[in-house]
């Protein structure tokens, strides 16, 4: 746990972001992992289906809009300095993960859920960016929800159903991340 803000001082273009990724791994690896699982639609794969299958229901949406191919293309189209930053950041987290695995310093949640962190890729960095952006600021384009009430020749947005009556309220189409608390961690013999 960091007691103050991390500051990275570096000389090469890649190094500030490597340091940022490394320090993030040190302080917030499980939070970053939870975001990565959510953003890549792999929550059910690693944490299980959830009590009411909610992970199974939420994963496909993330896979559709942040699929690997799309993110690879997106990465390739970034300006060179941005690619350096994204790659450096991923390398930095991986640097910490390697060190943590060797030194037994991984967050205990990994053992509790029974998986190891796979390497951080540039696609993961972009997927989290897009997912969090969507959670915090995705609005509009819900006309399809109100399409049955629309009339020909007029944009359905002018005929939007009364506030609150839409099955998917504007701005709430993407569930906000709930950081998973591993039940198995509390039950493991080590903690009895």
């Amino acid at each position: 746990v960091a007691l103050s803000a991390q500051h990275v001082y570096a000389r090469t273009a890649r190094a500030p972001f490597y340091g940022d990724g490394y320090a993030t791994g040190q302080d917030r690896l499980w939070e970053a992992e939870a975001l990565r699982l959510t953003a890549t639609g792999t929550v059910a794969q690693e944490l299980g289906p959830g009590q009411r299958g909610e992970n199974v229901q939420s994963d496909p949406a993330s896979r559709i809009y942040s699929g690997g191919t799309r993110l690879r293309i997106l990465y390739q189209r970034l300006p060179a300095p941005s690619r350096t930053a994204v790659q450096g950041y991923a390398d930095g987290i991986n640097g910490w993960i390697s060190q943590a695995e060797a030194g037994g310093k991984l967050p205990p949640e990994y053992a509790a859920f029974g998986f190891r962190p796979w390497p951080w890729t540039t696609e993961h960095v972009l997927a989290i960016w897009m997912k969090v952006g969507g959670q915090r600021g995705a609005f509009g384009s819900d006309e399809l929800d109100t399409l049955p009430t629309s009339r020909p020749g007029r944009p359905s947005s002018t005929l939007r159903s009364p506030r609150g009556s839409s099955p998917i309220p504007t701005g709430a189409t993407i569930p906000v991340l709930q950081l998973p608390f591993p039940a198995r961690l509390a039950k493991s013999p080590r903690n009895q």
Partner: protein
Amino acid sequence: VTRRLPLLLPVAARARATALVQADDHQLARAGLALRLHSDAIVIGKRLSRDGRPLLLGGPQTGYGVPQIWMEAGLHGAGYDVAGVTIPGTVAVEIGFGSDDAWSVTSGGTDNSDWYCTWTSIPRT
């Protein structure tokens, strides 16, 4: 029993934080300062600030979380000199300031597409 404490403490702290935040939200809502959705940002020009420099107040209003979504960081060197907050797992200082500028984010409340409903008649062949 002693080993159980480290696990119970975060849970208790989280419950307490949640209760405090909810109470805080309620108070703010009564005062007309509800936090739900949308953001604000205020820029004060250099003519109006005491030291002659413009000021930025960013209010992204992302709510509270445990752990908090934001993580403070500063990146210095190789042409970068910024400090602010980042999101764990992804790169970039989303809200912050450099040596000559500052930036914030607001909710992306833009409706970028419109769907139209129209009737078509398919000729019978």
